[in-house]
């Protein structure tokens, strides 16, 4: 990812867009943070939010007309949050947060004529930036029309106090008899502001002319004005003018462009999306005392705030929620991970944990796809040789084993020498449900006797792992095999295989077996309670298959229990994108979050979804349990482990070959090593991703070499062997029924000169 791509990704996520209230505030006050702090009863923090953006907060908060309220998303759900009322409560109940900080002094001088709100804002904003300011005002004290307000709106003592604070920022107040043209023209300041929200002499008013509407600059260089009449809110509009003029004056004094990269007022415009479905209306709190809210009332009113956020994707994705932020910030993490030259790449696991399921893209109002971003990042890591070797190792090994001669097979149906269709059950269905796979093949043969079978893996793991070159090579190899069969249409039983072929080998003409079966007669099944149908994430954009499954279930008479995130919004089981490999703990959380969405037992039509969801202990059925009741497995059956899947694939190949009167040929010499494995040890092997086949190979190698470690006082023996990239160790006892396995472990680190 380069800088340009980062910016493109960032621009897609709208979570950092301001909430409507902030966008509607001409001073850019973070009204959401303010109201939330009030709701939290942290009035000091709330004042801090106001003081961060408001000039003379004690005055501004008292007089602010709260134009933000017009934009409040709560407006139609009980009324906009009374931000203005809350501002007054907060400012009344708290004290200023201390000294106002001023930047180092700057040499250029500013003169401000008039002392209405716009002028005081200019003085405040530019004084903070270090400019010495002279404010010329009428009367004894500065303040203009603010001096005319009753104490119930603005106590004069408060105004005095705020102006005193302003004085500490090197602002000098000078009383003059008239604000006239002579006074302004005679002044030698580097920049001049004339506040029209004070009483100007007619000659000065005539001299000004209209300012530039965007910069408030007057024709005469260095002169600025604001506070003109005719705007909706007398006070806050004047303050807003003062702020805009101060921005222009600062730029002018630094010889910068007045307009370049200038952010215009948003006037309530924001791209932030906030979902309000299901938000109950709550009426605005009316203060018992017309003067304003008391603390309790204020808290209640503030607690009506919706805390507008988008987070559409994060709310539904355990992966996105797990990492504590949102896609815009994740894009930065991915960029930083790729940009780092030395040190630890912090985001490798993050990038490899995305299930690539694509739900976020559907939910996002702006189509942000974490899947595309993470897959691109993985491809880059692979091409730069930065992909951690262990990240996807197990899944890639499993893929390769499903494609090797022990498990893979492609054949026409027995007694035929051509195929019009080719059944591609997928490696996981073959590994998890071999009997049902065979039965499904028999059913397809009934429908079309010229249906061949292809036991293989679609190479999705290579794709998900970002190994673009390997993936392309594997697909090219598959194309040759398919062409050798006469290019029949593929019939897949796995949504992932179907997606891979549809997107990368459309010439295979792959269709779902469920679509095929939905068009045939199906005997209704036994009455069952309603099941929650979990669509596999790889069927997200395949409504034809999803509809076919529902049609099949309807024919079977299977009622369905509603599951909110279904169809196009469906969720991953935790296996997709190799999440389970890179981050097994997160994959478990994802599965747990999924099954928690319904009290009903689950039903899926993806073998891997079935087993991933069943790992949580939730009863989960595969659709084949309903289609072939005679071979149905209990919904509560634990998942097939990693070792069993390998054995099942070999045995399925044996069974298919047996129908042709053929044999798989030479077995691996270690296949016959007999093991005795207790349930706890089996669980340990599963967790450590050590196959029983690995254990067999270690023991076989040790029996050939005779090299083991034997314990001095008990009968334990330890053997080791390097199998590919990993060294496996096995501790065991020798018994008559085979080897009793006590534990096994592995490491990737190599022992130099070690001869295992």
């Amino acid at each position: 990812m380069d800088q340009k791509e980062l910016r493109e990704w960032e621009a897609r996520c709208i979570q950092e867009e301001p909430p409507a209230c902030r966008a509607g505030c001409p001073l850019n006050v973070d009204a959401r943070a303010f109201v939330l702090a009030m709701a939290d009863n942290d009035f000091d923090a709330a004042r801090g939010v106001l003081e961060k953006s408001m000039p003379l907060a004690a005055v501004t908060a008292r007089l602010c007309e709260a134009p933000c309220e017009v934009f409040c998303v709560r407006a139609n759900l009980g009324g906009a949050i009374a931000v203005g009322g809350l501002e007054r409560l907060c400012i009344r109940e708290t004290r200023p947060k201390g000294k106002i900080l001023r930047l180092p002094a700057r040499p250029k001088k500013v003169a401000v004529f008039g002392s209405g709100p716009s002028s005081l804002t200019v003085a405040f904003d530019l004084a903070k930036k270090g400019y010495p300011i002279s404010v010329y005002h009428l009367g004894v004290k500065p303040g203009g029309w603010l001096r005319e307000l009753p104490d119930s709106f603005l106590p004069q003592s408060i105004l005095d106090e705020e102006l005193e604070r302003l004085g500490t920022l090197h602002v000098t107040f000078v009383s003059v008899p008239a604000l006239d043209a002579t006074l302004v023209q005679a002044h030698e300041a580097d920049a001049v502001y004339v506040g029209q929200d004070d009483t100007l002499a007619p000659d000065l008013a005539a001299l000004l002319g209209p300012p530039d509407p965007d910069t408030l600059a007057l024709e005469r260089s260095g002169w600025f004005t604001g506070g003109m009449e005719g705007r909706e809110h007398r006070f806050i509009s004047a303050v807003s003018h003062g702020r805009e003029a101060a921005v222009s004056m600062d730029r002018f004094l630094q010889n910068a462009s007045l307009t370049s990269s200038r952010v215009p007022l948003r006037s309530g415009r924001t791209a932030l999306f906030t979902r309000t479905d299901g938000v109950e209306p709550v009426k605005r709190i009316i203060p018992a005392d017309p003067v304003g809210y008391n603390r309790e009332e204020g808290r209640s009113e503030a607690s009506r705030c919706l805390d507008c956020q988008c987070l559409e994707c994060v709310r539904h994705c355990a992966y996105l929620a797990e990492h504590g932020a949102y896609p815009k910030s994740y894009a930065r993490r991915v960029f930083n991970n790729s940009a780092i030259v030395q040190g630890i790449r912090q985001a490798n696991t993050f990038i490899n944990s995305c299930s690539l399921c694509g739900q976020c893209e559907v939910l996002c109002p702006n189509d942000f796809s974490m899947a595309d971003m993470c897959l691109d990042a993985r491809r880059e890591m692979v091409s730069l040789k930065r992909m951690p070797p262990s990240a996807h190792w197990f899944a890639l090994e499993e893929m390769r084993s499903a494609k090797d001669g022990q498990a893979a097979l492609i054949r026409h149906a027995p007694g035929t020498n051509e195929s019009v269709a080719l059944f591609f059950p997928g490696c996981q269905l073959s590994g998890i449900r071999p009997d049902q796979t065979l039965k499904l093949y028999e059913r397809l043969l009934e429908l079309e006797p010229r249906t061949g079978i292809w036991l293989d893996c679609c190479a999705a793991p290579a794709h998900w792992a970002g190994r673009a070159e390997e993936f392309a090579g594997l697909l090219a190899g598959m194309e040759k095999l398919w062409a050798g069969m006469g290019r029949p249409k593929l019939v897949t039983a796995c949504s992932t295989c179907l997606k891979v072929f549809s997107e990368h080998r459309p010439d295979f003409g792959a269709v779902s077996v469920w679509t095929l079966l939905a068009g045939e007669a199906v005997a209704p099944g036994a009455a069952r309670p309603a099941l929650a149908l979990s669509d596999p994430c790889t069927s997200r954009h395949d409504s034809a298959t999803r509809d076919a499954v529902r049609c099949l279930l309807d024919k079977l008479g299977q009622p369905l229990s509603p599951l909110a995130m279904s169809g196009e919004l469906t969720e991953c089981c935790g296996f997709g994108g190799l999440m389970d490999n890179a981050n097994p703990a997160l994959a478990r959380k994802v599965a747990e979050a999924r099954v928690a969405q319904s009290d009903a037992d689950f039903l899926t039509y993806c073998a891997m979804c079935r087993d991933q969801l069943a790992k949580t202990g939730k009863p989960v059925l595969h659709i084949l349990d309903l289609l072939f009741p005679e071979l149905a497995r209990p919904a509560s059956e634990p998942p097939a482990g990693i070792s069993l899947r390998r054995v099942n694939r070999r045995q399925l190949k044996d069974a298919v070959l047996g129908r042709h009167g053929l044999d798989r040929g030479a077995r691996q010499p270690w296949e016959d090593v007999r093991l005795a494995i207790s349930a706890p040890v089996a669980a340990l092997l599963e967790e450590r991703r050590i196959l029983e086949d690995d254990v067999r190979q270690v023991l076989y190698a040790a029996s050939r070499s005779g090299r083991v470690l034997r314990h001095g006082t008990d009968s334990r023996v330890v053997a080791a062997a390097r199998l590919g990239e990993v060294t496996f160790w096995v501790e065991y006892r020798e018994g008559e029924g085979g080897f009793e396995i006590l534990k096994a472990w592995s490491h990737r680190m190599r022992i130099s000169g070690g001869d295992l």
Partner: protein
Amino acid sequence: MSLVFMPEDMDWVCEPCGERLTPGKVELNYLGNVFHVELPVCPKCGFVYLYEDLAMGRVLEVEQLLEDK
């Protein structure tokens, strides 16, 4: 990585050498990084015992660190 790693139970005998394991200097390497450590070794044939706690603890930690480097 500190230098010496020994399991609590050192009562292991190398077969067929018939020698009890003793601490010995070993070079470990991963992804081009080399570490010199002391591990239980057969004094005769040099067979190195990378025991479970070490493999699943410190070694795994270092492997992951190097993979993210």
